[in-house]
C-alpha cells in the first residue's frame, strides 16, 4: 500500500475541514439576528440575537435565516386626505424601523419586501386617521411653538397608534414615525399661486408707500434736528452780540452826563447824513430857517435857530421838511 505524502494529506484535511466548517457552522454578524429553522420548523427559542459562530446541521436539515437588525426606512405612498376643515392635503409619512422579534418576523413576513409592504399599509392607515382629524392650521401657522408642539403630537400619536400592532404582528420595532412631505392638490396650488400674486402686488405697493413715508420721516427729523441746532446756535449768537453791546456800553458810559446831549446831537447828525445819503428827495419850504437864510441872508435869527443846543431838540437844526429816503418815481 502506497503511503500518502504528508502535504497531500494536510491539503486534503484542510479542504475537508473547510467544507465541514461551511456545512456545519453559521455566522451571525454583530448587526444581524437569526432564526434556526429545523426541518421547516422555527420556535421562539431558535432565535439567535448574539453575534458569533454557531453550529448547525447542514441544509436542508437546518437553515439559519439571517436578518439585518439595523435601522431601515419605509415611506407611505402619497395619498390625498381631507382635513377636518375640509382642506385636501397629500401627505407622505415615513417610518424608521428595525427587526425586534426575529421569530415573529420570520413567521409573518419572511422576507423584507413583504415587511415593507405590510408596513406601508399600516402606516398609511395611521397617517390618514391622524391627518383627517386635524385642521390645515395644525400643520402650518406662524406660531412656531404651537406648530412644533403640533408636529410632535402628531408624530407621537402616529407612533403610539402603529408601533404596538406592528411589533406584535410582525416583530418590527418602529423607532420613529414622521411626515416627510405635504402637497396640495393641483387645482389648489393654482388658487394658492393666484393668491400669492395678489399678495405680492399688495406687498410691492406697501414697500413703495413705506419707502416714501420713511424717507419723509427721515428728512423731517433732519429738518427738526437742524432747527434745534440752529436755535441753540442763535441763542449763542445772541449771547455774542450781547457781549459786543456790553463792551460798547462800557465805552459810552465814560461820557459825562453833561456831554451826553452833545453826543446825542452828533448821533442825530450822523443818522441824518446816513439816511439822506442816497437818492433822497428833499423839500425845503419857506418856513425853514435854511430857506430864510437863502432868501434873506441878513436875518440872523435863522442862524441862531440852527445853533441853539438847548432850546431845540436834536433834530430841529435840520431842514424842517425833509422827505428822507428813496423817492418812488
Amino acid at each position, binding site marked *: 500500500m502506497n503511503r500518502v505524502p504528508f502535504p497531500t494529506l494536510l491539503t486534503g484535511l484542510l479542504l475537508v475541514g473547510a467544507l465541514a466548517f461551511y456545512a456545519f457552522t453559521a455566522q451571525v454578524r454583530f448587526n444581524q439576528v437569526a432564526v434556526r429553522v429545523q426541518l421547516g420548523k422555527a420556535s421562539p427559542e431558535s432565535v439567535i440575537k448574539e453575534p458569533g459562530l454557531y453550529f448547525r446541521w447542514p441544509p436542508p436539515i437546518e437553515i439559519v435565516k439571517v436578518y439585518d437588525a439595523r435601522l431601515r426606512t419605509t415611506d407611505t405612498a402619497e395619498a390625498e386626505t381631507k382635513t377636518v376643515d375640509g382642506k385636501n392635503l397629500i401627505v407622505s409619512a415615513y417610518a424608521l424601523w428595525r427587526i425586534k422579534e426575529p421569530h415573529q418576523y420570520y413567521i409573518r413576513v419572511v422576507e423584507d419586501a413583504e415587511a415593507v409592504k405590510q408596513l406601508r399599509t399600516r402606516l398609511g392607515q395611521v397617517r390618514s386617521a391622524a391627518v383627517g382629524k386635524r385642521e390645515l392650521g395644525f400643520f402650518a401657522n406662524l406660531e412656531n411653538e404651537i406648530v412644533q408642539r403640533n408636529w410632535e403630537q402628531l408624530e407621537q400619536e402616529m407612533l403610539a397608534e402603529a408601533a404596538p400592532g406592528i411589533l406584535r404582528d410582525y416583530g418590527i420595532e418602529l423607532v420613529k414615525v414622521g411626515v416627510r412631505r405635504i*402637497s396640495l392638490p393641483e387645482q389648489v396650488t393654482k388658487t394658492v399661486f393666484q393668491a400669492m400674486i395678489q399678495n405680492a402686488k399688495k406687498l410691492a405697493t406697501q414697500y413703495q408707500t413705506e419707502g416714501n413715508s420713511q424717507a419723509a420721516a427721515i428728512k423731517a427729523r433732519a429738518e427738526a434736528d437742524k432747527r434745534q441746532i440752529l436755535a441753540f446756535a442763535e441763542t449763542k449768537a445772541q449771547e455774542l452780540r450781547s457781549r459786543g453791546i456790553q463792551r460798547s456800553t462800557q465805552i459810552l458810559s465814560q461820557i459825562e452826563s453833561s456831554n451826553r446831549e452833545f453826543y446825542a446831537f452828533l448821533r442825530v447828525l450822523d443818522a441824518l447824513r446816513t439816511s439822506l445819503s442816497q437818492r433822497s428827495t428833499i423839500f425845503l419850504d419857506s418856513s425853514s430857517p435854511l430857506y430864510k437864510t437863502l432868501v434873506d441872508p441878513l436875518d440872523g435869527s435863522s442862524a441862531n435857530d440852527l445853533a441853539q443846543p438847548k432850546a431845540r431838540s436834536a433834530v430841529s*437844526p435840520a431842514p424842517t421838511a425833509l422827505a428822507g429816503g428813496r423817492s418812488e418815481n
Partner: protein
Amino acid sequence: MANRPIERPADPAQESLIGALHTGFNVLRLLMIVMLVAYAFSGISRVQTGEQGLLVRFGRLVMNAATNTAVHEPGWQLALPDPFDEKIRLSGKTSTLIIDTFCFQRMPEQMTMPLASVEMMKESLTPGSDGALLTGDKNLAHGIFRVEYRVADGEAFVRSIGETAEAVQPMLRRLAESAILREMSWRRFEDVTRGDMSAVGAAVRERLRSQIGELGWGVEVVGVVPELVEPPSVRSAYREVSDAENRKKETEDKARAEATEILNKTAGTQNAGLLETIRIYGNKQLLGAPESELAEVRKQLDAELEQAGGDVAARLRSAAAEANETFESVKREYEIFTQWSKQHDRDPQLTRILLWDEMRAAVLQNPENEVFYLPTSKRTVITVNRDPDLERQREIERIQGKRK
C-alpha cells in the same frame, strides 16, 4: 534464497525526467509556501488618516484595547486573513446628500442651473412629481437642501446604520425632509425666499443633530445649505416686490444721505455729537435736573457749538463779527465825540453850527439827492414823475457816473 530487486541499468532520459520533475515540484512547493505566507499576512492592513477601521471576527466586532471601542485609529492593523477576519473602513470625508423632494420637476439640462433661473411653463403643481413646501402663512415655496455629513463614531454607525457612509442616506433623507417641513411650517414665505435662508439651514441642521444624537447613529451633520425660491409662476410678481423693496431701500438711503447733508450743512460733521448733547440737555430739562447740572451740559453744548462747522459756525462768526463791528463803531463814534467835545466845551454853539453845516452840505450837495425849494404859497402841488423811461435814463447815468 531471498528475492533481491533486480537493478536495472539507469536510463539517462528517465533520470533527466525525474530530475526535472523534482525541480518543478520543489519550485511549486516553494511557490505554495510563499503563497501560504502571503495569505497568512494578507490580513495586515493600514487604516489611512481620517478613516476609522473596524474588525469583524466570526461575526463579532474586535475591540481595540487602547480605546476600549471597536474603532481602530489610523495606522497598521493586524488581522487574520479572510474569511476569518473581515475589515471595515469608514471614510472620514464629508459626504453630501442632496434633497430635492421639495423642488418642482426639472429637465435634465436644468439640474445644474440655479433654481431661481429655472422656468416652469405650467401654472400649477402636479402632486408626486412637483414638490413644494407649505410655509406658515400658507404659501408655497420650492427648495433644494444640501446636507453635509460625516461618520463621527464608526462603531455606532456600523451597529445601527451600515458599513459605508452612503448607507445612512435613505434615513438621513427622511429625517431631513421631516425637519425641513417642520422648519418651514412656521416661517413666512417672504422670510424664507427673500430673507435669511441660512437661518433655515442652521435650524434644520440643529434639528437633525438633535435627532441623530438621540438615535445614536454616529453621524455628524456638518451643515445644511438651502436654496429656496418662490414658485416660477409667481416669480415675476415677487420680482416686482424685490424691485419695490430695493426702491424702498434706495429712497430711504437717499433720504438718509439728504438728512446727513442737511445736518452737515447745519453743523458740520460734529452734528451727531451736538445733537446728542442737545438731547441730553432737553431730557435733563424735562426731568427737572438741578441748575448746576444743566449749566454743566450747557457748557459742553457751548463748547461743541464753537467747534461745529456749517451754518452754525457761519452764524456764530457773523454774530461775533456783528458784535465786534458794533463795538468798533461805538469806539469810533466815541473817538469822534472826544475830538469834538473839547471844541464843544469851548464854544458849543459854533461847534454845533459847524457840524450841522457839514451834515447839511453832505446832504444837499449829494448829487444823488434832489432838493426842492417850496415857495411861500397857500397851496403847493408836488407831481412825482412816474415816467419809466426817464427813471431808466437816470439809472444808466448813475451807473455810468459810478464807473467813472
